[in-house]
């Protein structure tokens, strides 16, 4: 691994972000990355965070039109409440703050505690839970669906609404709409290696893959002999469309995120996207916008995920709105 030590990985990365992005205010000690002009213009703050190892999520999405601040935890470990409280304080311009929380027990508990503390400090806080991963059934027998690729959609669209001056309630309800309209499915072709463990988190022999993985190096729901990109796309898109159908009848196009888990070459990812696009076309699902790349990663895991979000005109407009962050940039 390209590291100094397992202990220093997150602090080192934050020092690097500070050096690379002068428009970010990076508190390496307290682990908060804040957009320098977060408080100018009296906007609603949008704060997210989670375990590290998913870069560019979240810190790479801090900036104009997206996140006001991000709180990176240890690798695959949700941040602690102190970080979110500090971030909320740093970005609040009197209009309140939205917490974007991926649905993992740790993230939920820590953000909840932070919300309580920040509210005690007099801030208005709303939380939106992201739970888009269809590989996990949302039932009494699980901690609920995981938050994965849809996080990018939620952060982009909530950030755009906040940038426009939408009030907290509206920013929060848009964020919830995006989450409820999004579903994801992920596949691993290799396990990943956390700095602390130093060896792959599970054993996945060459020639096998895991279907229905999350983004924390945990095994998926099912192991299979290696499949072609075409077959993998069938499974992933099929699973996502099936769950989207349960929300209700389609009423518009989708936003598509074809996401690499970290170690899958862009060459392969584009080839995989060709299959995704073909399948969507065959099933009559119009795609309004597409993003192909490594956005919500799992360290050095090889694999990919597909996220689709049903987008009405308002969501599309907010998706297209200018954004200027380390990892996502257009229109500005």
């Amino acid at each position, binding site marked *: 691994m390209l590291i100094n030590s397992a202990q220093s990985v997150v602090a080192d990365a934050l020092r690097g972000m500070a050096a690379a992005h002068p428009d970010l205010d990076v508190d390496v000690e307290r682990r908060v990355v804040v957009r320098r002009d977060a408080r100018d213009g009296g906007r609603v703050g949008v704060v997210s965070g989670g375990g590290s190892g998913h870069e560019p999520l979240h810190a790479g999405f801090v900036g104009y039109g997206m996140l006001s601040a991000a709180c990176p935890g240890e690798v695959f470990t949700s941040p602690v409440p102190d970080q979110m409280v500090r971030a909320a304080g740093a970005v609040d311009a009197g209009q309140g703050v939205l917490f974007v929380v991926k649905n993992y027990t740790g993230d939920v508990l820590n953000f909840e505690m932070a919300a309580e503390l920040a509210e005690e400090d007099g801030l208005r806080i709303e939380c939106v839970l992201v739970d888009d991963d269809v590989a996990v059934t949302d039932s009494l027998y699980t901690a609920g669906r995981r938050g994965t690729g849809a996080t990018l959609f939620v952060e982009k669209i909530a950030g755009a609404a906040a940038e426009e001056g939408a009030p907290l309630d509206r920013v929060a309800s848009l964020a919830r709409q995006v989450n409820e309209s999004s579903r994801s499915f992920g596949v691993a072709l290799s396990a990943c290696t956390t700095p602390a463990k130093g060896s792959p988190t599970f054993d996945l022999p060459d020639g096998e893959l895991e279907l229905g993985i999350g983004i924390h190096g945990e095994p998926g*729901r099912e192991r299979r002999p290696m499949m072609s990109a075409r077959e993998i796309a069938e499974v992933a898109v099929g699973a996502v469309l099936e769950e989207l159908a349960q929300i209700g009848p389609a009423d518009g196009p989708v936003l598509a995120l074809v996401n690499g888990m970290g170690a899958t070459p862009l060459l392969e990812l584009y080839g995989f996207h060709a299959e995704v696009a073909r399948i969507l076309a065959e099933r009559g699902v119009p795609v309004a916008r597409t993003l192909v790349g490594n956005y919500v990663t799992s360290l050095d895991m090889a694999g990919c995920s597909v996220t689709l979000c049903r987008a009405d005109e308002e969501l599309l407009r907010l998706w297209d709105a200018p954004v200027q962050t380390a990892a996502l940039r257009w229109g500005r």
Partner: protein
Amino acid sequence: MRDADFFRHWMAAVAASVEREADRLTELDSPIGDADHGSNLLRGFTAVVAALGAQPPTAAPGEVLQLAGRTLISTVGGASGPLYGTLLRRTGKALGESDEVSDAELRAALAAGVDAVAQLGGAAPGDKTMLDALEPGVAALGTSYRAARVAAENGALATVPMRARKGRASYLGERSIGHQDPGATSSALLLGALADVAEPEGAR
């Protein structure tokens, strides 16, 4: 009666056993989790020991545990940070402000702490979580500290055949069966350390 030093020793003993067992906890967290439980608790209890070292020596037992709990919440993250942090904070609060507490008071306070964990995490025994060690462990305190250790250890072992219904392991469904829960394992360390401090080797 147990004074503040007793609780400081307990926390130091937990820190020592977490340090010893960190790799095993992370290892257990690999097949059914995200391979961080050992490093999470190591980071947390190292910070607890440092925080308690900086706390005024006049602190009451309840204050010791509350500071330990707050420190875990501020340094661990993940699911175990808020859960163990709440366990110790609530236990500390229940102990009140007296300088010495009886074993019965400690037992009642720990039971309140375990309830708080169940409430916060929404889990029940059988869900393959730390509660599967904490509940039987704390219940057995009525017998003896050593009985609590054994009950917690058995509780941790009993998670092996369980199918997880809370936390990350629940994502695996059927595939979570056959693995011991890391949090239940660390809970057994917590109560084991308590037994060590309350009934030291020599006294056995």
